[in-house]
């Protein structure tokens, strides 16, 4: 009976869940606010909405989050931007946490493209990786 219970407990133990984690290396680390601003196409304050889409490129998960802009501090007037980040649901991104719906941010942003002659995607990435995202 005891052996049966032990076997049952063994079977009932949940299988180890694989967790995914992404570490990123900054192509050009920003030295401070002045440099972050100078290298950004757009600096805004805004709130992440609940709208987001996810995709994988060569096995790397990306998430694109809609941000409602509350104030433009530098760059063209916009009322909404899509911010592209490495990561996605259930993925740990210690270097640059993914924007959370309902939270406010100060964002230093650069236009995203796959190459210099690429058609504008309408998406932005944060300047200097995690340095370009400040919880506000």
């Amino acid at each position: 009976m005891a052996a049966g219970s032990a076997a049952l407990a063994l079977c009932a133990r949940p299988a180890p869940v694989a967790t995914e984690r992404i570490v990123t290396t900054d192509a050009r680390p920003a030295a401070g606010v002045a440099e972050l601003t100078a290298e950004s196409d757009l600096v805004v304050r805004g709130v992440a909405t609940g709208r987001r889409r996810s995709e994988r490129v060569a096995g790397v998960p990306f998430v694109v989050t809609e941000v409602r802009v509350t104030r433009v501090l530098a760059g063209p007037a916009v009322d909404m931007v899509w911010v592209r980040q490495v990561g996605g649901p259930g993925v740990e991104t210690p270097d640059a946490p993914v924007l959370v719906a309902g939270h406010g941010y100060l964002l230093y942003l650069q236009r995203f493209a796959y190459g210099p002659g690429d058609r504008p995607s309408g998406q932005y990435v944060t300047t200097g990786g995690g340095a370009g995202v400040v919880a506000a």
Partner: protein
Amino acid sequence: MVSSFLVRLVSVAVLFVATAGPGQARAYTLEACAWAGTSIAYTDQSGAYAGTTERAVADWNGVRGSPVRLYAANGAALTFQARNFGRSGYDGITVMSCDGAGHFVHVTSSYNTYYADRYGSAARESLFGHEIGHALGLAHTGALPCPVPIMYHGSDRYFSCGEVGPQPDDVAGVQAVVHRVQGR
């Protein structure tokens, strides 16, 4: 009495500098996950970057004191690749999946060719040596000014400091990873 104290103080200081080196206090940080063994297979899918990948692998395999050895194999759980991830702000990306026992299931380390295509050979080698460090279980560490470990988070590890291969602190980190795994 005082001179004896001074001699001991100087001895300790010399020992510290000899052990740590100037500006090289222990800094390594470990990821929560690691490979179960010390012989680690990888599959190279880095294409035009294969030569750089080989040099970065050789840097890790040849560095004094490293307890791990990387070797090429088909279908390995560790993959190296070179892809264009666009202007993401990152020149290297490593994706790790880890099981509940603290062992890697799959790891993929990537050059982002959007940036790396503009780098010279040594800068690419530095970048990929850094990504391999992640694949061996090392996290980011270190801070400017130079010198910095290969696991310093930004590309100025090479462009400001000229670091191409693993430094003593990086090797100490991998030794700590192996020690931790063997202690489980």
